[in-house]
C-alpha cells in the first residue's frame, strides 16, 4: 500500500463516555447473540419453549380488573402512597396463610415483602455476601439466582442433583472440601420443589438430610419456593422452613400463583436477619410497591385464590402431559429428560456431541425456541442440555414445538455425523447431572 500521512484529523470513539469507569463486575455485561435470538422467540410464529411466563389468561381478569378499579376508587389515597419498608401488615398476615399448606408456621413480623422473590434473593445476598464468598447451588441452578450471585461477585459452587433433587452426600462432600480449603461458604441456595430448570423435587427423606448437613456445617440454607403450590400430585411436601426456622431463609412469590406483573414476593427470615433485610429493602426501594401489595391483598381476601392455584396446576399438568407425550413420540431415543410433577419445566439432555447453544440459531430458523443449558451453570457446564418450558404455550403449540425441535435435532445430529465433532469452543459435554469438562464458549 502506498505510504502517506492520514488525510485528516480522525475522531476516536468507543461510543461510551464511561467505558473506563464501570465497576469491574460489569465486565460480563456484553451484548449476546443468544439473548438477541430470544427477540425472535417472542414472535407468534415461533413456538417458544424458552420463557417461564405463567398462563395469565387463566386468571379471572374481569374480576381482577374490578378489584383494581374499586381499590383506586375506595383507597386510592393510601394504596398510591408510599408504604412500609417491611411491607403491608395485612398482606404479611395473609402471606403466613399462603405458606401454611406447606407446613410453615410463621409470624407476620418475620415476613418482609419484596419486589418479587428475585429482589428477596438480591437482598439476602446483599446482606450476607462479600466478593469471593461461596454460595452453593444445585447443578443446574436458576439462572436469575446465578445473575444475583454474579452481581455480588460470589463464587458459585454447583452440587449434583438427581431425580430426587439435591444429592445429600454431594452436598456434604462439597461443604467439607470448601471448609478444608478455608472458603467462606455463606449459604446453600436451593429450589426444592419442581426445580427451575431441572423440573425435579427434593424428596421428603432428603429434606431432613440436607437440613442436617447444613446444621453439621453450620451453614444457612436459602429455600426458593415459587412453585411449591403448583404440584400435580396432591398436597405439597413440607417446606424446609417448616422443619427448621433458624437456619432457613425462605423466599416466596405471587408471580406463579397470581401474577408476575405485580412483582410481589417475600422473604421469611429469622428475626435478626429480617431486621437487616428491612434496612436493606429501605435503602434499595424505600418500600415495596404499595399498590401491587394492595391488589394482591384484596385478591387473596376476595377471590378463591386456592381454587385459582388448583386451576393453574391443572392447566400446567395438561401442558406437561402434552410436552412429555410429544417428546416421547418425536425425539430420538438418545435424548433423556426429567418428568416433572409440578411447576413449569422439563430438563432434557441431548445426545453426545450436541451443543444446545450452537444449535439455537437452527431452532429459531425452524420457529422453535428453548433455553440452552449453559445458562443454568456458573461454570460453563450444561452444553448438551436444554430447558423446555410448558407453562405458556397451549398443548397444541407445545406438540408443534416439540415436532419442530425433533426436526432440528435430526438435522443437527446428521451434521455432527458428517463432521464427527462438537462445535467450536464446546469441548465439554455436560449432561443433566454429569460433571464433564467445561464449555469454554
Amino acid at each position, binding site marked *: 500500500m502506498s505510504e502517506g500521512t492520514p488525510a485528516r484529523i480522525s475522531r476516536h470513539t*468507543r461510543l461510551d463516555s464511561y467505558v473506563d469507569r464501570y465497576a469491574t463486575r460489569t465486565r460480563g455485561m456484553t451484548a449476546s447473540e443468544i439473548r438477541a435470538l430470544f427477540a425472535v422467540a417472542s414472535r407468534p410464529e415461533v413456538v417458544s419453549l424458552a420463557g417461564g411466563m405463567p398462563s395469565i389468561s387463566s386468571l379471572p381478569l374481569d374480576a381482577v380488573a374490578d378489584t383494581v378499579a374499586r381499590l383506586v376508587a375506595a383507597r386510592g389515597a393510601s394504596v398510591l402512597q408510599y408504604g412500609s419498608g417491611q411491607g403491608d401488615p395485612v398482606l404479611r398476615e395473609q402471606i403466613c396463610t399462603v405458606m401454611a399448606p406447606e407446613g410453615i408456621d410463621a409470624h407476620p413480623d418475620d415476613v418482609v415483602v419484596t419486589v418479587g422473590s428475585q429482589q428477596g434473593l438480591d437482598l439476602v445476598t446483599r446482606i450476607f455476601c462479600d466478593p469471593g464468598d461461596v454460595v452453593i447451588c444445585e447443578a443446574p441452578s436458576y439462572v436469575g439466582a446465578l445473575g444475583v450471585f454474579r452481581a455480588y461477585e460470589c463464587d458459585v459452587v454447583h452440587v449434583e442433583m438427581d431425580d430426587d433433587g439435591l444429592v445429600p452426600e454431594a452436598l456434604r462432600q462439597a461443604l467439607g472440601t470448601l471448609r478444608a480449603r478455608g472458603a467462606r461458604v455463606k449459604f446453600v441456595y436451593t429450589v426444592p420443589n419442581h426445580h427451575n430448570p431441572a423440573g425435579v423435587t427434593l424428596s421428603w427423606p432428603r429434606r431432613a438430610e440436607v437440613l442436617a448437613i447444613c446444621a453439621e456445617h453450620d451453614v444457612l440454607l436459602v429455600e426458593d419456593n415459587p412453585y411449591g403450590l403448583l404440584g400435580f400430585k396432591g398436597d405439597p411436601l413440607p417446606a424446609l422452613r417448616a422443619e427448621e426456622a433458624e437456619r432457613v431463609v425462605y423466599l416466596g412469590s405471587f408471580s406463579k400463583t397470581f401474577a408476575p406483573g405485580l412483582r410481589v414476593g417475600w422473604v421469611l427470615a429469622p428475626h435478626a436477619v429480617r431486621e437487616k433485610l428491612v434496612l436493606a429493602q429501605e435503602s434499595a426501594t424505600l418500600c415495596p410497591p404499595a399498590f401491587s401489595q394492595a391488589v394482591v391483598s384484596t385478591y387473596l381476601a376476595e377471590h378463591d385464590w386456592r381454587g385459582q392455584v388448583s386451576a393453574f396446576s391443572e392447566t400446567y399438568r395438561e401442558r406437561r402431559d402434552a410436552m412429555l407425550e410429544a417428546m416421547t413420540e418425536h425425539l430420538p431415543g438418545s435424548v433423556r429428560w426429567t418428568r416433572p410433577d409440578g411447576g413449569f419445566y422439563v430438563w432434557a439432555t441431548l445426545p453426545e456431541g450436541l451443543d444446545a447453544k450452537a444449535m439455537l440459531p437452527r431452532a*429459531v430458523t425452524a420457529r422453535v425456541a428453548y433455553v440452552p443449558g449453559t445458562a443454568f451453570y456458573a461454570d460453563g457446564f450444561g452444553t448438551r442440555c436444554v430447558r423446555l418450558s410448558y407453562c405458556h404455550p397451549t398443548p397444541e403449540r407445545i406438540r408443534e414445538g416439540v415436532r419442530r425441535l425433533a426436526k432440528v435435532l435430526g438435522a443437527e445430529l446428521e451434521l455432527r455425523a*458428517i463432521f464427527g465433532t462438537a462445535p467450536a469452543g464446546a469441548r465439554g459435554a455436560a449432561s443433566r447431572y454429569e460433571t464433564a469438562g467445561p464449555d469454554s464458549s
Partner: protein
Amino acid sequence: MSRVVVLAGGLSHERDVSLRSGRRVSQALRGHGVDVDELDISAELLPALQSDPPACVIPLVHGAAGEDGALRDVLELVGVPYVGARPDACRLAFDKPVAKTLVARAGLRTPAAVALPAEAFKELGARTVMDSVLAEVGLPLVVKPARGGSALGCTVVRAADALPGAMVSCFAYDRVALVERFVAGTEVAVTVLEQPAGELRALPPVEVRPDGEVYDYAARYTAGATEFVAPAEIPAGALTACEEAALTAHRTLGLRHLSRTDLMVDAEGVWFLEVNVAPGVTDTSLVPLAVEAAGLDLGAVYAELAATARSGD
C-alpha cells in the same frame, strides 16, 4: 414530507439489531420533522401499506428476507416507493460468494474463498473436502454463513482441527458456508450515499478496532467494546482506495441510495469482504459514525433518501 414507514424487526436472527436500527432512524427522522410509523413484518403489513400508502418505506430489516430481495419484491408489487437497492441487486449483494465474484470481475481484490453447502461435505466426505479447503484457502481462515450479517455464525480458524466445529457453527445459520482466507490488517467500513442529484458519495471510511481478536457480535453491539476511528487512520492513498472500492462495489452490484462495504487493508492493499444493502443503524453501528464524520445529520440523510426514493429514482 408526508408519512414515512420504517420497517424493522422481521424473523431473521438479526431481529433485535433491526429493531434497534428502526428505532434510531425513526427518532432521527422525527427530529427532522418527518411523520414516521414504525412497522414490523407481519400479516398486517401489506393491508396497512395498501389501505394507507405512505410516501415512502425505509426497509431496515436485516438478514434474510430483509436483505435478500424478497421484502423489496413485495414492496415493488405493492407499488410503494422504498429506500435502498432493488430486489435483483439485493439478491446479488446479500449472497457473499456471488458478490465477491462480481466485484472481483470489476477489479477489486477479495480474499481467496470457497462456498460450500452442507450437502457437499455429506456427499464427498467431510474430511476430504476440509483437507481440500485447507489446501486451497490456507490458515488462518474465516468461516461465515454465505448469507447473513452481524458476524453471526462466523469463526476465525487458526488450526485445522478447529475447522469442523466452525463449519457446524456456521451451518446453524445458513445452508451454505463461505470459507475465506483470513486477512490480518485494518478493518474498515465505507458507507456509500447517493446524493439527491444522483451522484454517489463515499463517506469517510470508519476504522474498526475491537478490543478482542475479532469484530464479533458482542464487539459490534456492546458500547465500549470497540474503538472506532473516523476517518480511518490509514495512509491517504489507502483511504482513497477504500472509498473507490466501496463505490466500485456499489456500482458493480447495481445498488441504490445507500450501502456499506466492509474492507480489510493490509500491506498488499484493500480487500473486499462484503457489502450490506440494509446496513445497521444502531447506536453502535458504522453508518451513523460515517454520517457524523461527513458532517451530516442522520435524520437529514434518511429524509433525503426518502425524498429521492419518492421521486422515483
